[in-house]
């Protein structure tokens, strides 16, 4: 009897070993939220028959990985993450240009001049507040950057590390471009007192606010909605009246990646109406003019945007991060 069970156990374990062979496989790093990536990838696989093996990493982490793997790239494509991070990638030499065949015009600021990266969505930085917290604290939701410094929010704000998260770096770059570098750091030092703790992932603060672990999350509006009130959490989104930053989400091909042709197909697909329509589920604003926008998603004309120079942000990334680390001390 003992022997039978042992043999069975071995057979079961061996049966597990059934690697997928034959199908074409595209390897990718996705900076989109895991749950979100899981909405889109199966559709791509269905539409094209190409299998995708992906790892979810925050944008900053993707950049770090690509630079570390430069001699032996593990993936062919970087999907998601703000354009300034993809620009840093171009600067680091980890990307390779690709111009997708489009039957619609992509704005200049929505792609790299050399086509090293291509934009596929827009999103603005906003504040997500837990309504229960607001009620208990007796304050309205913050509507300006200065509001965030109020003592009532001490230990109640969540945001990610600017070096791991594209979201958070966008906030830093926005502040720098809005207030000037020194003032921006002064501001963040004051903000630091109100921050509960830093996350690795840019959209994690939203769920934490939803849970009530913190009162306010600073994140992109699509994340605020998709992971906040759309999910059922008591979150309301507000935007700073002084102006806010935004991201053009990008895709770039990895230099030396194992499946460049499949990667190109993915880019084409991501910009197609079909794929862009899928983004309604996450309240992202699509760039393809023929795609539909989800109800409740925050469009560019609904908030005050600053004139955000993504290229400068991308080039200054290393320097600003270094300064942030030594001045904020994290």
């Amino acid at each position, binding site marked *: 009897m*003992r022997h039978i*069970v*042992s043999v069975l*156990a071995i057979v079961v*374990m061996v049966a*597990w*070993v059934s690697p997928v062979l034959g199908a074409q496989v595209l*390897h*990718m*790093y996705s900076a989109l*939220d*895991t*749950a979100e990536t*899981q909405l889109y990838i199966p559709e791509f696989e269905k539409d094209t028959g190409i299998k995708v*093996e*992906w*790892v*979810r*990493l*925050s944008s*900053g*982490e993707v*950049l*770090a*990985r690509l*630079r*570390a*793997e430069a*001699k*032996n790239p*593990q*993936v062919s494509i970087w999907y998601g993450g703000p354009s300034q991070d993809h620009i840093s990638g171009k600067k680091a030499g980890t990307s390779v240009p690709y111009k997708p065949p489009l039957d619609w015009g992509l704005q200049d600021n929505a792609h790299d001049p050399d086509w090293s990266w291509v934009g596929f969505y827009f999103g603005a930085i906003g504040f997500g507040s837990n309504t229960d917290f607001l009620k208990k604290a007796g304050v309205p939701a913050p509507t300006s950057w200065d509001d965030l410094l109020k003592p009532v929010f001490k230990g109640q704000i969540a945001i990610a*590390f600017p*070096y*791991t998260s594209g979201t958070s770096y966008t906030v830093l770059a926005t502040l720098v471009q809005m207030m000037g570098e020194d003032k921006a750091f002064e501001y963040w030092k004051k903000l630091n007192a109100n921050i*509960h*703790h830093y*996350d*690795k*992932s840019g*959209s*994690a603060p939203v*769920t*934490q606010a*939803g*849970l*009530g*672990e*913190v009162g306010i999350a600073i994140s992109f509006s699509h994340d605020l909605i998709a992971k906040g009130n759309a*999910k*059922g*959490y*008591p979150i309301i989104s507000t935007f700073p009246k002084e102006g806010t930053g935004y991201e053009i989400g990008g895709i770039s091909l990895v230099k030396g990646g194992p499946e460049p042709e499949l990667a190109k197909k993915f880019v084409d697909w991501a910009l197609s109406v079909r794929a862009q329509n899928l983004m309604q589920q996450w309240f992202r604003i699509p760039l393809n003019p023929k795609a539909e926008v989800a109800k409740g998603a925050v469009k560019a004309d609904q908030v005050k945007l600053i004139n955000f120079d993504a290229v400068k942000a991308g080039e200054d990334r290393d320097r600003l*991060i270094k300064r942030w*680390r*030594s001045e904020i*001390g*994290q």
Partner: protein
Amino acid sequence: MGREAGLDSAREVSWRQMDGLRRILREPVLAAAIGVIVASLFLFVIYPLVRVFQMSVVEDGRFTLHVYRDLLSKAFERRPLYNSLLLGVLVALAGTAVGYLFAFAIARADVPWKRFFRVIATFPIISPPFVLSLAAILMLGRKGFITRMLFQGQWDPHIYGLRGLVLVETIAFFPTAFLIMLGVLQAIDPALEESSLNLGATRWQVFRTVTLPLSVPGLASSLLVLFVESLADFGNPIILSGNFPVLSVQAYLHITGMVDFSGGAALAVILLFPTLTAFLLQKYWVGRKSYVTVTGKPSPARLSVDPMTRRLLLGLCLAMTGVILLLYGTVVFGSFVTLWGANYTLTLTHYVSVFHIGGRYLRDTLILASVATPVTGILGMIIAFLVVRKQFVGKGLMDLTSMLTFAVPGTVVGIGYILAFNEPPLLLTGTAAIIVLLFIFRNVPVGSRAGVAALQQIDKAIEEAATNLGAGSGRTFVTITLPLITPAFFSGLAYSFVRCMTAISAVIFVVSGKWNLITVAILGLVENADLSQAAAFSLVLIAIVLVVLGLIQVGVGRVATSQMGYEPSG
């Protein structure tokens, strides 16, 4: 005659080792085995560490300490070091205390339901350590279950940070302390305590003057081992550290978030100092000073306390048990909740998504663990056999090297592997091989420790008889030794498998699109505050581990849990 002996002894030592070497060279199979093992240990244990060290002190081809200077000159870079040490000390103390409580209650206070307490006291071993962090947030976060129920949300337990980490790591690691202390208490000769009573001492005096002093080596071991485990812990701090940065996480962030390889490597080396020191102290100093007299069989539980104390101890054990059950229970509950914090209707959707989306991770993890575990077991046994039964030059070094992965935190090893195997001729990053190798060499000490213990219990005469009858080393090992150490072999396998399934701190560096692990996925979910999802995944993982352990147990008949849990996990 004394002088003569002195002159001969120096010659004798090297002669014996050379003789040992000569004997081995006469047996080609044995010599080949040793050669392969030495080469593997060098390549997969030593070399990655060398690369980490190298990365931290070499810049532009020159030796420099400026990376360390840079790091240590900044207060915010020094803080993780203090924090890690502080946390380590606190966890060592708390964990040892809890472990001693349970061990004493079982071995000396003869509490009822001993088996139940044993299971509780060793359960945290089979769960990924960071499940407890998840539970802590669910229970004691601002919107935690306890926080809301008991404190109406008025009091913030500040679970993120030192407090939470001490709580969580104590529970995660006290089983190790428990097993050490149980072993020590059971090995103390009853005659010592009985004669003390006989001479008129009160029970308290017996404890204070006999039991406790004899337990000291065990206590010291436990403190040191737990200190190392806490420092090496990665899964818990990455979730729960909040504004209390620790070295393991910082090293990771430097590498994965900032591409600061030299900084990350330097932090890893700094992390290595206290852990290596504690490990060596434990192995070579405390480990040798065993005061217990071995009476052959571990003595059964004794009743050495008065009824009041017994009730008190029982109460404390029950309280601890309650805490542990509450934590794990919260995870179970959380896995069925639609949206923790907002919508508490029960649902199975998270479990559905475990198999739907997580199926790939489960498959990968099981395949890799299934491949690595048998290799680990066999390699461990061979090393144990060589270390216990054979004499040769460098034997001590082989023994130490194979144990090294216990002392070295996973973070350091992980960084070492990505540095060492990122370019030809050893291009392994992104492959399954690198994960399997990591599993194997992180867990070899488990197998070899179990093997060493088992071998030491075999009457040498049995193996000598086989040799005497004509069997060479290989044949003796296969036909005689191996069958006799089978139980230890299987318990080593079981524990290795558990460690593979719950590993995080080293493997998080080497997962790729092609091969991903369930623990990494769970971590991602927790970071993303998808708590219910993470809870469901965790429980499925624990369930799989239990099933496999059960299968192994059925296959062997008995899994020696007394051998498990002795070493740092993750």
